[in-house]
C-alpha cells in the first residue's frame, strides 16, 4: 500500500501539501511516484513565479510517460528543489522528503481547506486513483 502521511493534505492529481509556518511545501505522493515508475526528468518553475491552485506548474517524466504537475494552492514560489534537475530519481526514493518540489507562500488562506485530507486521499487511491 502507498504511504499517505496523516499530517499532509492532497490533491486529486496526487500532489501533497505540507503546512510549514506561513508556507506550504509541495511534492507528489508515494502513490504517484509508484504509478509513474522511474522518474527521469522534472521541470519546475523558477523562484518568484506564481502558481494557481489546480493549474499546471510543471512536468514530471518517467521513462514511459509525461505527467503534468498541479498546484495545490495559489501563491508565489519561494523555493524550488534544484536537486531534482540532476537527480530526478529522488522523487521515487523519498517522495515526501528529499523529493519535494516547491515551497509556496500562499496568497489566500481558504484554499487549504479545499484540499483532500489523508483519509479522503486514501479513499481516492483505493478506487484506483481517479
Amino acid at each position, binding site marked *: 500500500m502507498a504511504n499517505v502521511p496523516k499530517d499532509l493534505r492532497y490533491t486529486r492529481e496526487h500532489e501533497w501539501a505540507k503546512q510549514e509556518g506561513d508556507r506550504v511545501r509541495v511534492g507528489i505522493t508515494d502513490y504517484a511516484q509508484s504509478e509513474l*515508475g522511474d522518474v*527521469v*526528468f522534472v521541470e519546475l518553475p523558477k523562484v518568484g513565479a506564481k502558481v494557481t491552485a489546480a493549474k499546471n506548474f510543471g512536468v514530471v*517524466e518517467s*521513462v514511459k510517460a509525461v505527467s503534468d504537475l498541479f498546484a495545490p494552492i495559489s501563491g508565489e514560489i519561494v523555493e524550488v528543489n534544484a536537486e531534482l534537475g540532476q537527480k530526478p530519481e529522488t522523487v521515487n526514493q523519498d517522495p515526501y522528503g528529499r523529493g519535494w518540489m516547491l515551497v509556496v507562500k500562499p496568497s489566500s488562506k481558504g484554499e487549504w481547506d479545499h484540499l483532500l485530507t489523508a483519509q479522503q486521499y486514501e479513499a481516492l487511491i483505493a478506487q484506483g486513483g481517479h
Partner: protein
Amino acid sequence: MSPPLKRTPLYHEHVAAGARMVPFGGWEMPVQYTGIIEEHRAARGAVGLFDVSHMGEFEVEGPGALAALQHLTTNDVAALEVGQVQYSVLCYPSGTIVDDLTVYRLADERYMITVNAGNIDKDWAHVTTSTAHVKDARWRNASEGTGLIAVQGPKAEALVGRLADCDVAAIGYYHFVRGRVAEVETVISRTGYTGEDGFELYAPADGTVKLWKALLAAGRADGATPVGLGARDTLRLEMKYALYGNDIDETTNALEAGLGWVVKPAKGEFIGREALEKSRAEGLRRRLVGIEMVDRAVARHGYPVQKDSRAVGVVTSGSYGPSVDRYIGIAYVETPLAAVGTPLEVEIRGQGKAARVARTPFYPPKVKKPA
C-alpha cells in the same frame, strides 16, 4: 469496442511476479516487474529474460517458398543457408513498410518469418494475398502455438548453455540450431533486440512456462531477471533499432529509415523494388537519425524537430538512456541536416530545446560477431 486483449502462455507468471500489465499491439503484456531502469541494467550487466511470445511466426514451405519470400522481402533470401537468420523488410509497392521481420531458413524448402505482434493479422493477409500467384508455397500461421523467450545479456550464453542439450557457444550471430533447453524442444537463435549477446528461444506454447521457470531458477545466481516492454524499449533505443509503429510504418520508406543495408535490388523483383530504386536515384528527402538532447529535456514520439525555428522533421522515439545516462532519441530530419553533430531543436511543450544529431548506436553493441 476493441476486441479483448490476447495473453501469452506466460501471462499468469507475469501477474504472479507482480508485473504491471499494459495493452500493447492487442496483447496484455508486462511493461515492468520491479522498475524499467533496474531491468535495463540487469540485461546489460547480467541476463534479462523477455517474454516476446506475442510476436508472430509464419512458416512457408514447398518448392515455391524461396520465390514467395524473394517476392515479399527486400533482402536476398537466396543468400540464406539452412540454420541462418536474416533481418529484412516487407514493403508496399510504394516502398513504405508493412513490417520488419527476421527470416529463418529451417530446411531446404522451408522457412519461418517472425513478425511484430501488432501486425500479425495485417502481415498474414499481406503475405498470403501477395504470393497467391506463387506455385507450391504453403503458408502456415504458427503464431498461436509458439512461445518466444529472449535471453539477453553477458550471462546469457552461460545460462542457456547450462540448460541446453547442445553446444550453444558454437552458434554464430544470426544463426540458430534446434535443441532442447530445459527438456523443451526449441529453436535456439542467436539474435535479439538489445545489443547484448544472447538468444531468442522459440518453444511450443505449452512448453513455454516450463522453459521460463527453468531459466529463472537456473539463472538466479547469475542475476537473471524478467524484463518488461519498458526496458525492452530503452535497450533497443540505445542501439537505434527501429520499432514498428514508432520509427517505421506504412508512411516511411525503407531507405530513409536507414534500412538500405537489407534492400537488395540486385536479387531481382520484389514488392517495392521499383519505388525504392527510384527513391535511391532521386536522393532521399529525409533520414532517420539518432539525436541527443543538449538542453535537459526528454524528446518523445511525435515532437517536432526544428532548425532555426523552421520545421525540419519529427521525433519518432525518445527517452532517457539508462546505460548512456543521456536523453536520447530517434528522429526523421531533412537529409542535409543528418550529419553527426548537426545542431537542431526539439519542440517540447512549445519551447525549442537544443539537441544534436548523435553517433549511433548510442551504446556499443556486445553482440557475438560472426566467426
